[in-house]
Structure formats: structure tokens, C-alpha cells
């Protein structure tokens, strides 16, 4: 019997219509756990570096994590992996919601899609019965609308459905995969799904997920539960409200947006509006949010309430679900002070199925180009002249790939190069061709420099986490913070926080030192890699300060769940293995040190020499050569000798030069 996992993958060849239930090797779990870990392994084994995002050979994998479907709170993430049409690298956007647990209950750990369907289809997975069904009648339907239509058609209200909208159908590079209150948004999974002509994947499962030592598992969960209750009633003092709690940023609950509106950039990551949070604006934003949100909602088995059901005549009257920063990204990108606009356009964007981080920036980029005379009236023919109307019009064009929308649909990086005439200069907020959070700051932050530059996630909001974002002003505050900091993997991190000051010798950019920064970043990404292998929401582990899940209780939970006895060192080794395999996969596709840099204007004050030193120190710490490629020694140590051989064969790793 298999524990925590089901031990089966579902392999679907869309070209031949062939469906197979394949038993997996338990050894894979020992080496890579599950979720991101085992998915990366599949891509490494089966996707050649020459494969392009829209080639039939590009695998699209929907994966559960090791703990999905167990009673572990917040283990609900679905991981989608594919070569991104935007970055050309292995992307792994995730979504919460209900899908992955349902897949486990249906008896599968992953669904692996290869090749392309000749016509539009949706997949219906109902325990052992799996069908590829015609979806021609669903073409053009909204991503949310499709989910309910499929449930009705199947007469199965409890089916969980992941679907794409028009944007995915049209292979828009920022197309998302929508499911319940969640979406896998970043880097164009919806486009790959659309390219394969999969409109949706519906699942219903009624089988058991087993635990090896259930009673012991529940004892550990009891501690986690108590800590969740403690954290929900004890927010962390001296940090911004948004960082004080646990869960994904509580954007649906909190109405105070002074910090985001005045510190994040408006437009195409362009303007900081330090006086935005005036009385009338505060009133408009608060009223809009409180009126529009009908109910706060959760993902599967999670006590937090990071999502919301939106329904109000004041914002168009059409119901949809919202989460996180989607609440404000469109208003801010369009320079529209009225938050009702954001609530209205997000409804349409959700049905189209587009990433609410990248897409508003792409639209703002187009507006900037128009104002600069690079795009002309001809490109904007038929576009309303008001800010709101313009954004709606542009969103429609992008989702439909009509006119200028067809160019913009490839994202800022590619659009800028296609448009030319100096448009490249307006592409000032991408890393590895992917739009970043609209933040422009003063002083170089060495920790963030490393995270922006080096993580395979390519999205800062899902890299950062357990370490404070900034130094606490006073010694007392620092002492108070580290006092009950049980999550640290090593006591020395407490010392770093104690010594870290907002100004002076022990301040950024030179403190924490490059060595300390390497350790801190390594800790962050280790936690994210664990969460992503387990299918745990980062909001309860890697993404927030003092979370309920951490390096000291993950091994206990994994051991009790699976029966494999894993300690902290063993767990670190497993995720380090996955991290290096992922890196090698991307290296094999051409990624090197030259690609590892934040946007040029991300900080006003840059320190080229220090930055090089940071990167080199971190590479060395990770066991990578100065090109950012894992050395043979590191790979062999992680049982990845076959990867070293492959990299050497391709001339990416050169013998004796490491």
C-alpha cells in the first residue's frame, strides 16, 4: 500500500486519445518527495532542451503535492508545470482551491498531458473512469462559466474543474488556469493548455488517501492547529498589517491600502503616489471593498480566508471570486483612483483567464507607448479615450489577440521587441522576460537582489517569506521578534536579525553580508521547495513570518504520513536535489549568469561590484560554478551524477573547469 501518495500517474496522449494509469516507482518519492520535486524529474527525463513551449512534446503536468488530501491543514495546492512561452524555462505556477485533493481521492498523484488534441476537449476524471470529451460547445466560454457548465453537464456538483478562458484558447502568454477561487497564473500555463486544446480538466474522486501512522500524524497536526490559533490571535507587532498574519496576504479582509498604494508604483511600474491615501480615496476604497465582497472564502481544508466572493451591483453585479493583489493591480496600472473599476475589470479578466499581475502591466505599457507616440491612433483605432474604457478595450484586444492585442498578448518583453521604435526602453520591469511586481525602491537590498536574480520561480512574491523584509528600528523590537522565533533552522539567523539595523554600518546594502544573504536566501527557497513538494500553501509555511509549518515539523509530518523516516538533514537534501535538477533543466535550456539580474531601475542606488560579489558568493554557497551551473561535485553529492554527465555531454559543464 502507498501512503500519502496514491502511487499512480494518469498519462494522457492527446493526439492519439490514449489514456493510461501508470504505477510509479516508490523510489521516486524517496528521492524527490512529490509535487514540484517529482514533476521536475519528469520534465528532466522526458522533455529535451530543444523542445519549444508550443511543441507537442512540451509536457503539461497537473500535480498534487505529497500531503494533499491528508488532514494536514492548507495542503491544497495544485502545481502546473510546463515550459513557459514567456521565459522559455520550466515554470511552475500553482493554485489553491480544491482540485488537487479531489485528484488524490480519484486515485492519482499527477495528470501528465503530452501532444495536442486535434479538436477542443475537456477531460473528465471520475475515479477509474477517465474520458476525453468534446468541448466544442465550451469554446469561447469564460473560465468560471466553464466550470459550472461542466458540473451541470456531468450532473456532478462536486466535481472540481480547472479551466481556461478565451485568453488560454488564444495562447495569450499571460493566460491563467482558473479553478474555484484560485488560479495558476504566472508564466502562461493557460496558453500551453490552450495550445493542447484542453478547455478544462474536471475531477471527482471518492477513494481513500492513506496515512502510514495516522494517529501520530494527528498528534503533530494538533500542535500545528494550536499554533494557527495562536497566530490568528497574535499578529506580529512592528511590521506592516499585511505581514503580521498568516495565510496569503489578507487582501480581502484588510481595507487599509495606504502602504500598497503609496509604495507600489502606478502605471507601467512607473509612478509612486506618496499622497494617494487621502480621506476621499480611503473612503472610496474601503466602501467599494466592503460593499462588493459578499463572503470570505477558503481553499480546501484551510482555516484561513484569503479569497472572497464578489457580487454587487456597484461593481457590475456579476459574481466571481477574488484573491490577493488582483484587488488593486488594474486600478493602479490604469491610474484609476476609483476601486470600483478594479472590481469590474477583474471580473472580465477572470473569465478571460489572465494573470492579474502581468496583464495590467502589459496594458499600462501599451498606454505608455501610445502616449509616447510609439503606438499610434491606428493601433488604438476604436479605443475609448477615458482611462477605464481604454483598459477594458485593451484587455479585450489582448484576450482575443486582435490588432495590437495580438502583439501585446506575448507580454511586455516580446511586444517591446516586436513594436521596436524605442519600445524596448519601456520594458523596464521584467526578469527573464516575465513581468515583476511594480516596485521601484531606493537602496539595493542584497537579500532581494539574490531572490530576484536566481530563483527558478521568477516571481518575487512567491520566493520571499520567513525572514523579515526590513530591519526593525530598535533593539527592543529585534529582541522581541527573535524571542519566540521557533521556525529558524539555525540560531544564527536570530543573531542576523539582532545585528541588522535600518541605517549605519549594519544596514543594507552591506549587511547582511553576502555570506549571510546566501544562507538566508537558501533557507527561504528551501522552505518554498518543501511546500511545493508537499502541496502546502506557502501562506502557512514559506511565505510568511512565523508560520505554523517549518523545518522542524515538516519532517515529522512527512515521516508519519509516508512511513519513510526523514529527518531535517534528509529533507533538506531532497529539496536541494530538486532545486539543482530544476536549475540544471533551465541551464540546459540556455539560462546562465547573464540572465540573473533584477530590472535595472528596481533600485535607484545600485552597487555593481557588490552585486557581482553577492551573486558569486551565493553561487559558491549553492555549489554552482560562476556561470550559475551546478558543479559535478554538487550534482554527484545529490545523487544526480546522470545530470552532470548530460551537462558535460552538451558542453554546458566543462570538465575540470569547475
Amino acid at each position, binding site marked *: 500500500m502507498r501512503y500519502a501518495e496514491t502511487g499512480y500517474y494518469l498519462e494522457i496522449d492527446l493526439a492519439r486519445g490514449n489514456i493510461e494509469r501508470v504505477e510509479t516507482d516508490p523510489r521516486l518519492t524517496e528521492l524527490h518527495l512529490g509535487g514540484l520535486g517529482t514533476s521536475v524529474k519528469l520534465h528532466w527525463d522526458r522533455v529535451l532542451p530543444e523542445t519549444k513551449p508550443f511543441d507537442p512534446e512540451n509536457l503539461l503536468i497537473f500535480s498534487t503535492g505529497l500531503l494533499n488530501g491528508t488532514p494536514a491543514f492548507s495542503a491544497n495546492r495544485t502545481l502546473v508545470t510546463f515550459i513557459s512561452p514567456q521565459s522559455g524555462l520550466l515554470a511552475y505556477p500553482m493554485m489553491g482551491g480544491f482540485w488537487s485533493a479531489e485528484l488524490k481521492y480519484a486515485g492519482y498523484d499527477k495528470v501528465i498531458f503530452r501532444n495536442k488534441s486535434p479538436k477542443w476537449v475537456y477531460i473528465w476524471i471520475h475515479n477509474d473512469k477517465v474520458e476525453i470529451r468534446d468541448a466544442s460547445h465550451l469554446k469561447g466560454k469564460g473560465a468560471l462559466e466553464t466550470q459550472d457548465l461542466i458540473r451541470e453537464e456531468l450532473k456532478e456538483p462536486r466535481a472540481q474543474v480547472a479551466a481556461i478562458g478565451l485568453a488560454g484558447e488564444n495562447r495569450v502568454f499571460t493566460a491563467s488556469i482558473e479553478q474555484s477561487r484560485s488560479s495558476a497564473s504566472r508564466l502562461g500555463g493557460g496558453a500551453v493548455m490552450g495550445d493542447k486544446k484542453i478547455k478544462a480538466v474536471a475531477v471527482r474522486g471518492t477513494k*481513500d488517501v492513506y496515512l502510514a501512522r495516522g494517529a501520530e500524524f494527528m498528534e503533530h497536526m494538533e500542535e500545528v492547529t494550536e499554533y494557527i490559533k495562536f497566530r*490568528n490571535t497574535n499578529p506580529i507587532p512592528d511590521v506592516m498589517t499585511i505581514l503580521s498574519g498568516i495565510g496569503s496576504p489578507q487582501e480581502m479582509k484588510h481595507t487599509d491600502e495606504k502602504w500598497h498604494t503609496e509604495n507600489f508604483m502606478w502605471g507601467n511600474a512607473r509612478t509612486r503616489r506618496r499622497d494617494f491615501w487621502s480621506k476621499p480615496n480611503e473612503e472610496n476604497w474601503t466602501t467599494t471593498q466592503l460593499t462588493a465582497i*459578499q*463572503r470570505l472564502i*477558503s481553499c480546501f*481544508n484551510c482555516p484561513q480566508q484569503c479569497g472572497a466572493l464578489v457580487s454587487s451591483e456597484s461593481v457590475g453585479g456579476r459574481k466571481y471570486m477574488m484573491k490577493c493583489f488582483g484587488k488593486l493591480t488594474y486600478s493602479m496600472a490604469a491610474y484609476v483612483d476609483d476601486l470600483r473599476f478594479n472590481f469590474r475589470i477583474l471580473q472580465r479578466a477572470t473569465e478571460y483567464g489572465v494573470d492579474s499581475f502581468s496583464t495590467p502591466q502589459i496594458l499600462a505599457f501599451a498606454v505608455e507607448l501610445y502616449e509616447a507616440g510609439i503606438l499610434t491612433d491606428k493601433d488604438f483605432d476604436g479605443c475609448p479615450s477615458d482611462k477605464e474604457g481604454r483598459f477594458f478595450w485593451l484587455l479585450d484586444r489582448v484576450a482575443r489577440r486582435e490588432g495590437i492585442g495580438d502583439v501585446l498578448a506575448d507580454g511586455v518583453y516580446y511586444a517591446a521587441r516586436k513594436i521596436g521604435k524605442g519600445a524596448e526602453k519601456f520594458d523596464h520591469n521584467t526578469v527573464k522576460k516575465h513581468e515583476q511586481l511594480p516596485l521601484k525602491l531606493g537602496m539595493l537590498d542584497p537579500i532581494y537582489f539574490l531572490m530576484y536574480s536566481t530563483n527558478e520561480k521568477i516571481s518575487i512574491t512567491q520566493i520571499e517569506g520567513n525572514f523579515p523584509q526590513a530591519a526593525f528600528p530598535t533593539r527592543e523590537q529585534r529582541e522581541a521578534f527573535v524571542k519566540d522565533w521557533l521556525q529558524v533552522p539555525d540560531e544564527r539567523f536570530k543573531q542576523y536579525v539582532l545585528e541588522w539595523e535600518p541605517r549605519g554600518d549594519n544596514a543594507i546594502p552591506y549587511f547582511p553580508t553576502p555570506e549571510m544573504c546566501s544562507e538566508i536566501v537558501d533557507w527561504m527557497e528551501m522552505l518554498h521547495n518543501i511546500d511545493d513538494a508537499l502541496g502546502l500553501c506557502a501562506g502557512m509555511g514559506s511565505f510568511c513570518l512565523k508560520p505554523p509549518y517549518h523545518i522542524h515539523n515538516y519532517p515529522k509530518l512527512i515521516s508519519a504520513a509516508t512511513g519513510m523516516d526523514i529527518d531535517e538533514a534528509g529533507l533538506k537534501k531532497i529539496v536541494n536535489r530538486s532545486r539543482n535538477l530544476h536549475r540544471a533543466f533551465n541551464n540546459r535550456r540556455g539560462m546562465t549568469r547573464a540572465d540573473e539580474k533584477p530590472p535595472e531601475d528596481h533600485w535607484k542606488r545600485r552597487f555593481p561590484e557588490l552585486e557581482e560579489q553577492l551573486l558569486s558568493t551565493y553561487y559558491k554557497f549553492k555549489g554552482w560554478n560562476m556561470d550559475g551551473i551546478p558543479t559535478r561535485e554538487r550534482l554527484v553529492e545529490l545523487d544526480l551524477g546522470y545530470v552532470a554527465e548530460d551537462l558535460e555531454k552538451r558542453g554546458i559543464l566543462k570538465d575540470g573547469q569547475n
Partner: protein
Amino acid sequence: MAKIKKKIKTIKIDADKCNGCRACEIICSAFHATPKYSSSNPARARVQVISRRLKNIWLPVFAGEYAPAECMGRDKYVIDGKEYDECGFCRASCPSRDLFKEPDSGLPLKCDMCESDPPLSEPMCVQKCLNDVLTYEEREEEVEEEVKPADVEIGLESMIDKYGLEKVTDTFARMSASKNV
């Protein structure tokens, strides 16, 4: 008939607070697994959160009595403009729907308030609902004594309803014969 004191156990459901996470379903199925916590499967849970997300319906319903036949008619409620499914509030495991039935055997499920030895302070679903949707209450009432059928009896009764007494007896006889070999 003699009057006896009976403990009335109630779970108060504040559906307006429900965020639809289904933690109640998961813990219910894990608690009732044999051995305890050895597996989880919400389809076996004795509580189901009826979710119609875009209709703003999240409604935890607990499994009640097994009903061998469906009602003569169906009911449909509209509350605050929200239309609930047919029999939406009904707790019965009945032939009209697949709710509250073991997914493999089809046997009826019924909430037992997590009766166990030693007794729990409150049922597991109440303990694991951190949003206070479920509140456990106890009171004593004087009632007339009655004989309560055991789980096995309910299960057998539903099998007899489904397959007929003869078939169940035959199967039982055959199985006991083969087990005794």
C-alpha cells in the same frame, strides 16, 4: 413506557460563517477510519458542505437517518433570494441521491457525534472548524425509552431494502460457509 433522561447533542451551524474549506468533512472521514486516522476521504464523511460557490451557498449538512424510500415529493427552498437544491437541507441517506453513502458499498452513513471511549469534549468537526461555524451544545431532556438499532442493523436493513431478504440471507450463508472452511 418508562421515562429516561436523554442527553441531547446539538451542533449549531452558523452557515453564514462557513468559508467552504471542508475541514469538517476531512476530519470526519479520518476519525471514522479503521484504524482511526489511517485514511481520509470526504466522500465517506458524515457531514457534507454543499457548495454552490457563485450562488453564495456554503451549507454544512450532517448525515441523519437512513431512509429506505424517497419522499413522495421534494422540497426546494429559496432563502434571501438564494435557491437551494432539491432536498438541500435534508439529512437522510435515501435512494433519491448519493449523499451520505459509503462510496464503495453504498451503505448509509450517519453522524454519531464522534461517540468514542473515552468520550471527546466535542465532535471532531467542531474541533477542526477554526472559523466557529460549528458549535457543540448539550442538554438533558426526559424522553420515553426506545430501543436504538445498532449500526450493523441499519446497514443490514438497507441491504435488505436494496437486494431483498432472500438474496442477503443467501449471500450471508455462503460467505459464512466459506469463512468457516
